[in-house]
């Protein structure tokens, strides 16, 4: 079964978020009581390998999951920055469903031995989707906790055999006026482009996501294929990817082009480096089902709390200069 097929499972087989949350609690409870082996339960969980209810310490250390309260599916899919569908937070979810996600091809090229134009199925063939529950921090000062579904970006990239000249990887979002009404306004220099250093792109935390909450990505979340880089501000996690290019030099990135003093190439989450217009010391966490009116701001952590995993990549780098 290809990933695409896996994602096209009938609605009745898709676990409802409430059940999803509840089952975890029940399973965790059983596990805690020692009444149940977990392997059997796990098999029933389509389409990805389910996260173990009892998180194994190695994975926890790797930051692949978190027990923090999750953002609801409703909030993750209705509060989005995706300027190709409008610059308001609700615009992308309220825009007409004009994005054609099938067929979808991704052009991979540049400094690699095996460039090509691949269908989404071919791009992800043989890779087992996995779930990662990551914190997601927006440069605007709000954050979410999201269960993504995807494959490690590094596993996909290495199939193209990047050469020693591939120091960076550049990504491009689809830019089709017919499918994306927001393109009629030049909020950014379209198409949207982002980039990573090759070591960042191949870091185990970097995810090429195709789903949220065990369901396929919706248009507003960057269907059918997007990046998820939990230690960086959200805008680095480019959506609806149509091109991946291995390059020798630091590539053009859209927000950096728009305001280079506000949005650096790295854009790692860092409470010590303020955005010129607002502080990054704390954040408003959008999570849970209760009212968010009385929730306290929470302190922002260096690299969004993933410093243990990604910190070594930035050793010796002046994080004020290379923000």
């Amino acid at each position: 079964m290809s990933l695409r097929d896996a994602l096209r499972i009938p609605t009745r087989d898709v676990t409802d978020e409430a059940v999803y949350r509840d089952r975890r609690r029940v399973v965790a409870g059983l596990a805690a009581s020692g009444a149940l082996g977990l392997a059997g339960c796990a098999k029933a969980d389509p389409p990805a390998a389910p996260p173990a209810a009892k998180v194994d310490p190695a994975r926890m250390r790797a930051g692949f999951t978190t027990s923090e309260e999750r953002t609801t599916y409703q909030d993750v899919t209705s509060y989005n920055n995706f300027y190709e569908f409008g610059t308001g937070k609700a615009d992308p979810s309220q825009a007409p469903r004009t994005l054609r996600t099938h067929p979808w091809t991704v052009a991979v090229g540049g400094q690699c031995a095996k460039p090509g134009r691949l269908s989404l199925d071919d791009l992800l063939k043989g890779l087992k989707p996995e779930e990662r529950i990551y914190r997601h921090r927006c440069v605007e000062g709000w954050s979410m906790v999201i269960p993504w579904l995807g494959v490690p970006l590094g596993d996909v990239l290495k199939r193209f055999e990047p050469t020693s000249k591939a120091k960076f990887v550049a990504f491009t979002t689809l830019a089709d006026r017919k499918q994306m009404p927001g393109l009629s306004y030049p909020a950014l220099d379209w198409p949207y482009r982002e980039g990573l250093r090759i070591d960042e792109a191949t870091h185990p935390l970097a995810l090429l996501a195709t789903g949220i909450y065990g369901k396929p990505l919706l248009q507003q979340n960057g269907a059918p294929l997007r990046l998820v880089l939990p230690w960086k501000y959200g805008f680095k996690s480019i959506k609806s990817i149509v091109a991946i290019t291995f390059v020798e030099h630091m590539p053009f990135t859209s927000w950096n082009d728009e305001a280079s003093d506000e949005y650096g190439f790295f854009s790692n989450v860092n409470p010590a480096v303020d955005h010129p217009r607002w502080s990054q010391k704390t954040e408003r966490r959008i999570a849970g089902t209760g009212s968010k009116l009385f929730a306290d701001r929470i302190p922002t952590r260096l690299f969004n709390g993933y410093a243990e995993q990604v910190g070594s990549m930035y050793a010796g780098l002046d994080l004020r200069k290379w923000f």
Partner: protein
Amino acid sequence: MVLSAAAARPVRRRTEPGVIVAKIVVHLLALLPAAWLAWQIRNELVLGTGRLGADPVAAIEHFLGLWALRLLMITLAVTPLRQLTGKAVLLRFRRMLGLYTFFYATVHFAAWMVLDLRMDASQIGAAIAKKPFVTVGFAAWLLLVPLAATSFQRAMRALGRRWGQLHRAIYVIAVLAVLHFWWLVKSDIREPLLYATIAALLLGWRVWKRFAISPRRTATAG
């Protein structure tokens, strides 16, 4: 002093019924956004996520700020409208519109301090001191305070000519408020541009009146 001031008070003319009705309507219209917001907050508290979206704190701040700005523009439109229509009665609505501007601006500021920054004095202070868009917004609100405080008849009489000079601060406030909005948005300037255009027209009208018309008047007078 008090007695003489009271004695000097002119006999109040009775307000015409039409004006009273119109004032009630304006009050209701000005309160409508606040009532809508109060209802949405009630729903948010009782039912959980509602029309305020995933980030209700940001939505509340933005909504209140936007209405403060809209009422400011409406207040500034009163004088040009009177000059264009010749209807002096319009001036009777200016003060209440100005006070509603102050009301929305104050609740906007309070929402930012209480709901957003959770009364964290150090963060509030740092933001006002270091973030230009906050500094500008705070300055606009601060300038509104003396205008609201001197909006009643007795202050008007006590200040005499200086009352008019003081209340010309509204022009500065309009510029600061638009700038506050402009600096807040990330790259889509359409909405702040709309308000900047309206403010430019309203202030430009006054400049034009002063410099393009008065010389001619002086000429005929001379």
